C-alpha cells in the first residue's frame, strides 16, 4: 500500500473567510497562499488551489496481481473581476475521501 499527496490540504475555514464582492486578490493570497495556477480571462482572472491525495493498494498472488489507485482532490477556483475583487468561488473538498481498495470494489457508487 502506498499513499502520495500533492500540496497541503485546503481548509474549509479558510474558504469561509473569502467573501465575494468584498475580498480582494490580495486577501485571497493572504488566506490561501500562492495559487497553483493563474488564468487570465480577458481583463478578469481566476486562481487555482489544489491538494491531491492518492492511495494505491496492490495484492500479488504469485502469478496474479490486483492493484487499485484512488485519487481525490481538494480544489478551489476563485474568480476576480477587472479590479481584482473576488466575484465567484468554486470549491470541491474530497481529498480526504481517497481509499485503499481492490479493483473489483466500486468506490464511486
Amino acid at each position, binding site marked *: 500500500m502506498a499513499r502520495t499527496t500533492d500540496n497541503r490540504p485546503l481548509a474549509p475555514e479558510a474558504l469561509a473567510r473569502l467573501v465575494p464582492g468584498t475580498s480582494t486578490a490580495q486577501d485571497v493570497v493572504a488566506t490561501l497562499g500562492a495559487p497553483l495556477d493563474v*488564468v*487570465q*480571462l*480577458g*481583463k*478578469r482572472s*481566476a486562481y*487555482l488551489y489544489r491538494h491531491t491525495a492518492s492511495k494505491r493498494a496492490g495484492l500479488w498472488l504469485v*502469478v*496474479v*496481481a*490486483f*492493484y*487499485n*489507485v*484512488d*485519487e*481525490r*482532490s481538494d*480544489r*478551489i*477556483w476563485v*474568480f476576480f473581476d477587472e479590479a481584482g475583487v473576488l*466575484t*465567484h*468561488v*468554486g*470549491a*470541491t473538498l*474530497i481529498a480526504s475521501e481517497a481509499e485503499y481498495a481492490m*479493483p*473489483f470494489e466500486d*468506490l*464511486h457508487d
Partner: protein
Amino acid sequence: MFAHFRPSVALLGALLLPALGGCLSVSWGRTNRDEPLPSERLAELAAGRTTLAECLATFGAPERVEEHPVAGGAGAVLVWGWLDERDLGLSVSVPVTDQNSVNFDYRTLDARTRGLVLFFDERWILAEWRSGLLSEVAADVRRRPALVEEDA
C-alpha cells in the same frame, strides 16, 4: 502413452509450464480519479439562463478553467473530469538463451475519462455545454499562449 493425454490437459500443461518458471503473470487493475458529477443535475443546465455561480454551487470546483473568446470580449470554459479506468494485462516471458528472453504482452485498456465542459459568456451566463468523453468534448479547449511584450 502420450496419445492418451486429452487436449485440455496438454493445453493446461502448456499454460502452466511458463507459469511454473515465473514467466507468466496476469494483472487486474483499476484507477479512479475524482467523482462523477450527478447526471440528474446536467438536465437542469439551461443555455442562456444558468449562471456561473449556480454551476459552481452544483458541481463544485472544475478541474480546468480557460479563457474562451466570445463576441465583444472574453468568456470562460470550465472543465470537470473523472476517471474510472480498468486495466487487464497478461504478460508472458519465455527464455530463449541464457542471456535473452522473448516477451509477449497483451493488454486491454478501458480508458473512460468522462467529463463536463461548460462555456460561459462575458456576463458569466452559460452559453453552451457538452458532456461525454473529454477527449472528444474538450478537444478544442486549449490555453491561449501568453502575450510576450517586446521593448520598442
